[in-house]
């Protein structure tokens, strides 16, 4: 499989690079189609998290993206195989120097407002997103774009200062979307998103009552004829996993995505409920701030990596519902990853870890705070396990739980210390690594790594359009990251869904977002 998937990506990128138009294949958008599908019905989805707001240009919060992707669309769809499939774009042509992308837009697309979408809307939306004054977290990903032109109603041209092979994947649904031209002229435009949706997606906003429910209704004018099948989707904000389990058993809800896989255990024997596991694009990591205490010394970082038994942490924190990883999320391992056997500091080696600490003048060990985030349950058991493992090499861990807001503040200020992290990606290596590990100012370099070699590789990886060369660059980068572990990538947790048997053809997208609802249907 790895080879075939890679060939698939290689084929697509080669097509882009060869300047031939890549055509949209609608049947591949949003997952597989079920020929037996029937239209109609309403479902309730139980969710432990709720979007703070529905503005698709703000907040990278998973809670928002999970649902906004059903209402708003970008030019491409993030196929979890790592392929950006044309969505609002119908085709794309790339200039030989890879600095000009010309998109032909799909025709017959209407906004929820009823007006037809044109190139002016696309230009306006992406110009808004890339203007950093507007606060979109996705602005940095479009830093290579110098201007956007709309020569005619169905053509949009992105002009780049340097090649950016990740551009199509950047124009997917995580940050920003296509909204009507001039939308933000109204003073309350940002908050209006919470009352009326203005996207092009298969679902429209019906009601959003924070701390209670979010209701989406079928967009009858949706451009993919016949989709979606389900008339109405209610996202009920649930208080805890126990309530989700009870609600699934009692038919109050039809679908739930579990944040802790082991919570779904008790549903395995529940009649009428099916529990499924899906690969994810998420990873649980231990991050090491290179400016923090003893972590300044690369030998200490290596010693910690050698003392961490990833398999044990995986079992303790999420009951083994996941896969140990090296330096790549499991959903992209086949396409972009390096086999763990070829990476340094992956196997537990206590003797070597102790030797490294001794070499660093820390033979007696030291005390260090390990930060976990309140509300991230897996971190609690994980932290205790890590503490026990590090005790073997003399490192005494003090577990410190902090509020998410405080954690984000520390993270953005590059004062993260020694911390657990939990992050996901859209399926492109540049989007996964660049902002995290590229030295400032181009990247955020949250861990204060400031590694010139890594930055050079990440720049090249972003610009390289030849898939084979690109793969080689990211292989080299990952080996470097493993040798100098500023982020110990432990495992990707599987996505676990519990669903009532009347819900058919629901495929959980690897990002954790609810794209699968678009082609799901209800049996009577």
């Amino acid at each position, binding site marked *: 499989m790895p080879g075939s998937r890679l060939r698939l990506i290689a084929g697509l990128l080669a097509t882009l690079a060869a300047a031939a138009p890549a055509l949209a294949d609608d049947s591949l958008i949003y997952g597989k189609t079920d020929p037996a599908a029937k239209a109609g019905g309403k479902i309730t989805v139980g969710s432990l998290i709720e979007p*703070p707001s529905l503005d698709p240009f703000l907040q990278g919060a998973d809670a928002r993206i999970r649902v906004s992707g059903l209402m708003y669309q970008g030019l491409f769809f993030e196929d979890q195989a790592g392929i950006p499939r044309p969505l609002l774009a119908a085709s794309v042509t790339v200039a030989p120097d890879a600095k000009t992308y010309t998109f032909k837009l799909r025709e017959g697309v209407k906004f929820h407002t009823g007006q037809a979408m044109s190139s002016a809307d696309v230009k306006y939306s992406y110009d808004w997103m890339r203007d950093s004054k507007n*606060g979109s977290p996705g602005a940095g990903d479009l830093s290579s774009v110098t201007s956007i032109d709309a020569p005619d109603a169905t053509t949009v041209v992105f002009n780049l200062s340097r090649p950016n092979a990740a551009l199509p994947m950047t124009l997917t649904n995580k940050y920003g979307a296509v909204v009507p031209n001039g939308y933000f002229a109204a003073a309350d435009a940002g908050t209006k998103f919470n009352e009326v949706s203005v996207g092009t997606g298969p679902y429209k906003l019906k009601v959003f009552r*924070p701390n*209670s*429910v979010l209701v989406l209704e079928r967009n009858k004018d949706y451009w993919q004829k016949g989709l979606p099948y389900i008339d109405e989707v209610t996202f009920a904000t*649930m208080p805890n996993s126990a309530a989700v389990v009870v609600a699934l058993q009692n038919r109050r809800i039809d679908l739930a995505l579990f944040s802790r896989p082991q919570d779904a255990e008790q549903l395995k024997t529940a009649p009428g409920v099916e529990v499924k596991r899906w690969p994810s694009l998420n990873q649980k990591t231990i991050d090491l701030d290179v400016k923090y205490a003893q972590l300044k010394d690369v030998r200490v970082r290596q010693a910690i990596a050698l003392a961490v038994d990833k398999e044990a942490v995986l079992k303790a924190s999420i009951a083994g519902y996941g896969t140990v990883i090296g330096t790549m999320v499991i959903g992209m391992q086949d396409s972009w990853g390096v086999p763990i056997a070829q990476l340094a500091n992956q196997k537990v080696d206590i003797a070597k870890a102790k030797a490294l600490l001794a070499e660093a003048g820390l033979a007696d060990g030291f005390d260090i705070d390990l930060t976990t985030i309140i509300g991230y349950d897996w971190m609690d058991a994980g932290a205790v396990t890590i503490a026990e493992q590090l005790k073997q090499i003399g490192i005494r861990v003090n577990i410190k739980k902090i509020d998410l*807001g405080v954690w984000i503040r520390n993270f953005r200020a590059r004062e993260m210390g020694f911390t657990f992290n939990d992050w996901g990606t859209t399926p492109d290596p540049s989007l996964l690594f660049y902002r995290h590990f590229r030295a400032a100012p181009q990247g955020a370099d949250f861990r204060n790594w400031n590694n010139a070699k890594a930055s050079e590789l990440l720049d090249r990886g972003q610009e390289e359009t030849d898939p084979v060369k690109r793969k080689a660059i990211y292989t080299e980068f990952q080996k470097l990251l493993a040798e100098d572990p500023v982020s110990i990538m432990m495992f990707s947790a599987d996505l676990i869904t519990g669903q009532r048997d009347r819900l058919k053809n629901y495929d959980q997208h690897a990002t954790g977002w609810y794209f699968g609802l678009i082609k799901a249907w209800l049996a009577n």
Partner: protein
Amino acid sequence: MFRFLATRLASAAVAALLSSLAVFLLMRAVPGDIVGQMLGQSGNDRTAEAALRGFFGLDRPLWAQFGDWLANTFTGNLGRSWYQGRPVATLVWDAFLVTAEIAVATLVIATLIGVPLGVLAGIREGTRTDAAIQAFNLLGLSAPVFWIGLMLMVGASALLEWSPPFAYMPPTVDLAENINIIILPVLSLSLLQAAAYSHFVRDTMVTELRREYVRAAIAKGLAPRQVYFKHALRNILIPLVTFIGLILIQILGGAVVIESLFSLPGLGRLILSGIQGRDYPVVQGALLFVVLIAIVVNFAIDLLYGLIDPRLRS
């Protein structure tokens, strides 16, 4: 009476102002703000941070931010939620209606259960009935409200294969659905408060029944029922009214936990989500409202004293 009212109003205004200032400063003392939450683990672009800080007015001095908020509050404008864009006054009122429904229903049920139990235990002091009621009191007072709520939820599911709906429905829209939604949270809170009531009423009743006037009344040949309900019970009304006030405030506190447990969009959850999201206008507005409720409740209790005890009217 006028002087009494004026004094109470002045002290209430000072309490509201000081608590607002405390909330304002505490919220800003907590590291992290809405800008960080919005940008999360995104890029290193400080322009976006500065722009968003300017948009929310977070780049201005603290005294100016508080002054603006205070000036707007005096005109009845609590601002808008930074996330949702809706007026804070609307959000707070909508949430209050949910919390008020829970609180009133709890108060009624807890009173109907707790007071009779307390009276009965007081009258039957030292008997098995008294011991059984005291055991109930002990259980109710010692079991955490979230545990009771969770047990009710799991119990209802296991025994009845039933769980409450999760989308709140106001009683004015669909009363049956509303009762379905609030029954478990109200029962969770009621059990605790009924035990508190019962415990308090029993102790007060026992003390009252040992007073000389009770012995005299019984010696005069008055029927026990008359002694208990006409004399003793009337005399425990004053402390009971004080206690009702305390219970009401306690219910509001318990509502924070119970609303989170049962996904009810009340004041507790509004404040909690506001704090987590660093939505300062929502937290400040909602907590000011809670302080005002506490003031009004205490004020109403003072007035009730006057009605119950003729000696206080002068």
